[in-house]
């Protein structure tokens, strides 16, 4: 079912070029989007996808290039212009006003109004409608967005973009914090929009889902367009080959490792923001996956363990010693490390350099007689940049100037650099490209082999099933069940996460295979 557009393309971009200082982010890029077409934009981290789309939305001014919408020249002076011309976009980095409520954020810039006054009833109606559309009626329109989990925020962003009647909808990694069910719902909506003739640009590193939803694809590599074509008949391997210029197949490399004695135990732990007490333990050399839906309380559990939130009951025991209070530094000293799911809000100090961010949790190795040995530190950081293939100009570059995926890699590199022995990873592969993901899985396997313990929270079930030794499922703030990975399958995990009940036998997990 190929629907080749008959009319001229909705959007045509040609010769788009954009540099940031010495970095050439886009180099003479062309791009075409047909009516009612879903067009996948793919490429490695830092390939220039987000930059290209920001040029389209008017958020960035290109150094050179032409754009046309419906055959008419288009050169937006700013996002307001872009919106007026019918371009609406979900940005990769969350763009919500934390002090405003869900409803206010959804309506921002397009408030229901009657002569300058806010029309509350109309607002409530439309917000309810659109939240129902994304199947999250439980999100309260009156709650401040700053209090939502990252996943819920992403839902709010999607709702906002959908509210807009646009000709072109750009989705920059809309599902990076969403689970399967939410992604599937988004695809349905996207198909509906397509039927209405909306052109959709879809950026994602989940290549399977991209293949399912997109009609055509364009691949960027190092700021250049390296290929474009119909999705049908193009295999995963072909896409990857275009992206990285070589073959790559081992998506979930397994590194053999042995599970040892317990190193971290949460004993009826109840954090200040947790709904119910949770008991869970983690052993040396173990990779424990944690699954759950948006707001199921996984993040809150990690925060309590790490001492970021207050503890109201129960205990956290690390290597036999009980830890208490809101004292993350004491955890770090005991060898714990946490990777936050909210890399821009919490995970990284955006105005500081890559080097600072990477070494912040462990500067001791570079200290001599009270002074910091910068050369030595930069060398170490340079090594990590190379090992994780982080696209950065230099260790001194502010981390805010990196692409989303590369920022995530810096945050991860910090934990590796810190040599934490218990790693609490919250959505660690968020926004990271396929190839790098594989590499990160390999790293994690390697850590387990060294006897380190890894707690791996993810909304992406294949990676949990692919690398975890054991998987625990959360539902509405409590732990449903934890079992060896081999005893789960995708359907069983989904069922447990949505219903809060695990089937007696993993094999019959398909029963609820929604």
């Amino acid at each position, binding site marked *: 079912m190929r629907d080749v557009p008959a009319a001229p393309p909705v959007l045509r971009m040609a010769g788009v070029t954009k540099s940031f200082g010495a970095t050439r982010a886009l180099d003479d890029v062309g791009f075409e989007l047909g009516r009612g077409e879903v067009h996948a934009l793919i490429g490695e981290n830092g390939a220039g996808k987000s930059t290209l789309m920001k040029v389209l939305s008017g958020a960035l001014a290109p150094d050179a290039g032409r754009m046309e919408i419906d055959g008419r020249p288009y050169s937006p002076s700013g*996002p307001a212009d872009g919106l007026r011309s019918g371009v609406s976009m979900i940005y990769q980095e969350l763009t919500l*006003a934390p002090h405003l409520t869900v409803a206010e954020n959804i309506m921002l810039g397009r*408030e229901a109004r009657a002569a*300058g*006054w806010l029309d509350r009833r109309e607002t409530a109606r439309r917000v309810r409608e659109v939240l129902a559309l994304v199947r999250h009626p439980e999100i309260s329109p009156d709650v401040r967005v700053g209090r939502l989990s990252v996943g819920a925020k992403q839902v709010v962003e999607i709702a906002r973009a959908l509210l807009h009647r646009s000709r072109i909808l750009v989705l920059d990694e809309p599902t990076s914090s969403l689970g399967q069910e939410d992604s599937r719902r988004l695809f349905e909506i996207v198909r509906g929009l397509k039927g209405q003739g909306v052109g959709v640009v879809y950026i994602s590193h989940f290549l399977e889902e991209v293949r399912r939803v997109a009609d055509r694809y364009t691949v960027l590599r190092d700021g250049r367009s390296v290929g474009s074509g119909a999705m049908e008949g193009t295999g995963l391997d072909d896409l990857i080959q275009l992206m990285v210029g070589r073959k790559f197949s081992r998506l979930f490399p397994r590194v053999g490792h042995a599970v040892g004695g317990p190193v971290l135990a949460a004993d009826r732990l109840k954090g200040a923001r947790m709904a119910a007490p949770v008991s869970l333990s983690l052993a040396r050399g173990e990779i424990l996956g944690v699954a759950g839906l948006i707001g199921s309380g996984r993040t809150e559990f990690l925060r309590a363990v790490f001492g970021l939130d207050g503890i109201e009951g129960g205990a956290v025991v690390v290597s036999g010693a009980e830890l208490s209070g809101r004292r993350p530094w004491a955890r770090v000293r005991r060898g714990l490390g946490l990777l936050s799911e909210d890399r821009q809000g919490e995970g990284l100090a955006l105005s500081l350099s890559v080097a600072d961010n990477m070494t912040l949790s462990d500067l001791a190795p570079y200290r001599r007689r009270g002074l910091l040995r910068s050369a030595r530190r930069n060398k170490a950081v340079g090594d990590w940049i190379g090992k994780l293939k982080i696209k950065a100009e230099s260790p001194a570059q502010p981390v805010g100037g990196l692409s989303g995926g590369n920022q995530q890699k810096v945050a991860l590199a910090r934990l590796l650099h810190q040599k934490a022995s218990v790693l609490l990873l919250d959505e660690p592969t968020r926004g990271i490209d396929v190839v790098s993901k594989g590499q990160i899985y390999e790293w994690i396997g390697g850590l387990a082999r060294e006897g380190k313990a890894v707690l791996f929270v993810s909304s992406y079930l294949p990676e949990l099933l692919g690398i975890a030794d054991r998987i625990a499922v959360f539902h509405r703030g409590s732990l449903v069940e934890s079992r060896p990975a081999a005893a789960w399958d995708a359907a069983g995990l989904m069922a447990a996460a949505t219903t809060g009940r695990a089937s007696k036998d993993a094999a019959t997990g398909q029963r609820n295979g929604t």
Partner: protein
Amino acid sequence: MSRRRARLGRALDVFGPFVGLLLVIALFALIPEVRGRFLRAANFKSVATQSVIVALGALGMTLVIISGGIDLSAASNIALASVVTAYAVNAGAGPLLAVLLGVLTGGLVGLVNGGLVTRLRLVPFIVTMGMMGIARGAAKWIAGNQKIDAPMTWVNELMAKSPRPSWLLLAPGIWVVILLAAALAVLLKHTVFGRHVFAVGSNEATARLCGLRTDGIKVLVYAVSGLFCGLSGVMEFSRLTVGDPTVAVGLELDIIAAVVIGGGSLSGGEGGVLGTMVGVLIMSFLRNGCTMMGWPNYIQEIIIGAIIVAAVALDRLRHRKD
């Protein structure tokens, strides 16, 4: 039980902002020496009148602070507007025209602030600090380094403790503040513009990406704040009956403090009219009570400093709960 707690929570939310104020009033009401005098209606009236000038400045500042900015030129702007009004009255302009000129002068200064902040992309702190000097200098210049003596007109009745038509009960200036506070509260809560001001303060990048004309909004915010300062200057002139260019030195800190005490956040996105008004009254009552006690100034300064911290700490404690 949870419902009862919710109701209690709502009650605290309504009375919450007043906790600090009640604390201050209770403090002095408990001291036998001044109780009688302190709690009299006449004293409350006099505190209210004393609060008018800071209150008007603080209303404008609330807007600025919610939008993520700051206006250090507020106090100088007040002085400038008061001098311009006096100058106009003195030069024979009708009182109404003089008042208008004073208010517009304030607005103009605000407009320039907004223009510089958005055009030059400078931090508001620096722009308005520069403007603080410029406006103060201009005021002294216009006044010829002196007070401007102006003939008495109805403008001077605006701040009279016993207003002319006696059914007014309070000085007209107090009514002006009440009306404007209500108007600003409505503007902030129930209009699109108000919503946009919060959005700009909460996350300017987001506001821009959502298609708001952030620069226009900011210019407007500073201009409106300037108008408030202008009006405050008129009230200052009304109160002093002369245009004094040296008046209100350092008052910008009081104004900003009132907003912050009332829950405004200097990083933007938070603040409210009710809170600000409470902040203004807390400081006025403190000054009034301390003077009444006849404590030496240094003790007053120490006590006021300590109570400001305590009042805000109390308020935050209340917020911590939820």
